[in-house]
């Protein structure tokens, strides 16, 4: 089934040829994952799309196995999760990988998002590709939140209480919406059941949006560290074996870090209070979400008004949807944007600061700090990006990817 670059594949295997003539999946794989021309100059940041895909598959695989052993009932959920750990053969391994897999899925996606922002991958003609990515991120957040509720520990219960209560900030219909979400007048068995159903459903919707994300990606191909479009065959390599190999190596390195945490500190990223069974009568001293939500949690609490906080938190994600139009610079890659490069670093620091703010109780200096960091977050997207694109003088760009690669090698 060999084929050369650019020509339609010819399959020697009769069965494959028969199928492909009727349903061209093999041609598709050949075109999109073998000969697909890919910029030759990717750095290791470009691995994280593949890594995130591997994590998504791993989460679904472990999740389906967990679902066969889990009991979604308020009186039995906590014990059923413990039974998976204790009595299901290798159950602890599956739960451990799933629980920490969520964290590492978010790590992969956060690096992936950073890469997109640093190298301007969201700019024309890849705006829809970027927006689909933000949709995936939102779906992941919903899925992770509902998954965290399922063990029915104290943080599950109180986290669910805090987050679902946010909707009561909506004027007029807020309380009705909360009752509708809960399936009753308090968080109870109907809430747990619907969260379980949605936690199982949403990952498959994520798979569908990932498919659209990949289709959109393959229209114009990947961006690259220079942000310059490939101008010919000298600028690209076939996806296979060059990037299958490089992605494969990156995935394995990522799995090593993931395994270190999953096997030697499986509860490191979680909250101890979630090993206390949910108790509606005892509120934990401070309720914190999982680490990957902390920056958004800080933004929520930074605004003194409840509705304002909810708007700010959703606004923090909403600005990502319009990012392609907020950034007015015609240059994609930060490599050639001397000021924006530092602004990206500042934004990363700002988000980390917000994370610390979210982890600590909203008291003392944490309040002004989280407010300042929230302001800076919105300043970056709403003021800095539009203005900077107009005033920044980009560095001279190499004429092509090949030139950039060869110059780097010579220099």
């Amino acid at each position, binding site marked *: 089934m060999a084929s050369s670059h650019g020509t339609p594949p010819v399959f020697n295997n009769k069965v494959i040829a028969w199928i492909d003539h009727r349903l061209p999946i093999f041609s598709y794989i050949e075109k999109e994952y073998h000969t697909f021309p890919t910029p030759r100059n990717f750095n290791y940041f470009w691995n994280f799309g593949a890594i995130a895909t591997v994590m998504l598959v791993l989460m679904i695989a472990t999740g389906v196995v967990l679902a066969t052993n889990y009991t979604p009932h308020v009186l039995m959920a906590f014990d059923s999760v413990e039974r998976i750990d204790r009595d299901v053969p290798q159950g602890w391994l599956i739960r451990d990988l799933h629980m920490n897999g969520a964290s590492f899925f978010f790590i992969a996606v956060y690096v992936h998002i950073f890469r997109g922002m640093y190298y301007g991958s969201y700019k024309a003609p890849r705006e829809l590709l970027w927006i689909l990515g933000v949709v995936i991120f939102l779906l992941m957040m919903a899925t992770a939140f509902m998954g965290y509720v399922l063990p029915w520990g104290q943080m599950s219960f109180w986290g669910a209480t805090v987050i679902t209560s946010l909707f009561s900030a909506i004027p007029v219909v807020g309380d009705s919406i909360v009752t509708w979400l809960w399936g009753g007048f308090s968080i109870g068995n109907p809430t747990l059941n619907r969260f379980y159903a949605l936690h199982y459903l949403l990952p498959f919707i994520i798979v569908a949006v990932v498919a659209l994300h990949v289709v959109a990606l393959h229209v114009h191909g990947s961006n690259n560290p220079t942000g310059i479009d490939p101008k010919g065959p000298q600028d690209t390599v076939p996806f296979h074996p060059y990037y299958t190999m490089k992605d494969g190596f990156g995935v394995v390195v990522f799995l090593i870090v993931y395994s270190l945490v999953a096997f030697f500190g499986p509860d490191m990223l979680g909250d101890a209070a979630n*090993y206390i069974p949910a108790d509606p009568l005892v509120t934990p001293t401070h309720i914190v979400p999982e680490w990957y939500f902390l920056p958004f949690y800080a933004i929520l609490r930074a605004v003194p008004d409840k509705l304002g906080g909810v708007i700010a938190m959703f606004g923090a994600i909403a600005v990502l949807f319009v990012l392609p139009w907020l950034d007015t610079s015609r240059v994609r890659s930060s490599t050639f944007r001397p000021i924006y490069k530092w602004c990206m670093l500042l934004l990363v620091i700002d988000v980390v*600061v917000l994370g610390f703010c979210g982890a600590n109780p909203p008291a003392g200096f944490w309040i002004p700090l989280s407010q300042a960091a929230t302001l800076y977050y919105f300043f970056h997207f709403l003021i800095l990006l539009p203005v900077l694109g107009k005033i920044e003088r980009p560095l001279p760009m190499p004429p092509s990817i090949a030139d950039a690669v060869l110059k780097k090698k010579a220099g």
Partner: protein
Amino acid sequence: MRRLIVSGAIALAALVTGAGALIIGGGAIAAGTEAHPPKRSWHFQGPFGTYDRAAAQRGYQVYAEVCAACHSLSLLAYRNLMELGLTDNQVKGLIKDIVVPDLNDDGQPIERPARLSDSFRKPFPNMAAAAAANNGKAPPDLSVIVKAREGGANEIYALLTGYVPFDKLSPEQIKEFAVTKDDNFNTYFPGHKIAMPPPLADDKVTYADGTKATLGQQASDVTEFLAWASEPWMEDRKRTGVRVILFLLALAGLMYAVKRQVWSDKH
């Protein structure tokens, strides 16, 4: 030149903000209000740590003779004790006097001798009964107590040994925490007033292996036991982890070599 100055200023601001946040963050963590449990060395800590079987067996004795009067351990079955290096006959010997509730063939509630397959006997039939017998606060189940506390085993040990008798408290402490003669003061409990009276004292149990049953020894043994109860599969987890990491390291080496070979004509 101007661009250089702007970039420099932004970079400096970034560094200062970052460093400041780290210092402030670290300071806030160090300045918590409750006493932090001192770090002890445990047989099960570290990437290769295992449970000290002898200590955990003694710890079971402390649990069975002291804690079990009020605290359930509902996620464990008696058969699990065999994982502590006991034979089934030894475990049968340990539980020979324990009776558990059941129903007879007529559907009537009875008590019968415990079997290996039974879950640990609960001291109270339900939470309400547990609360009623303990001044309104049901004693927590201990199955995952070590994982359910931020300080883990250190915190459990500190709590068990952290009681201060009323006459040893300073007047300031009595005033600040509104302690009365009937309260139990514990250095490591949030708010210091704890419903549980001091559970352990020197020679509360007599160890079969001749180990001297000091307060600290019993606390350390029962904590070892409870740590095991929280995660009986820990040793399996670490062993699996070592194999997985070694495999992935070898695989990463191979992948890197092949990747370099594949890319050799492009660099």
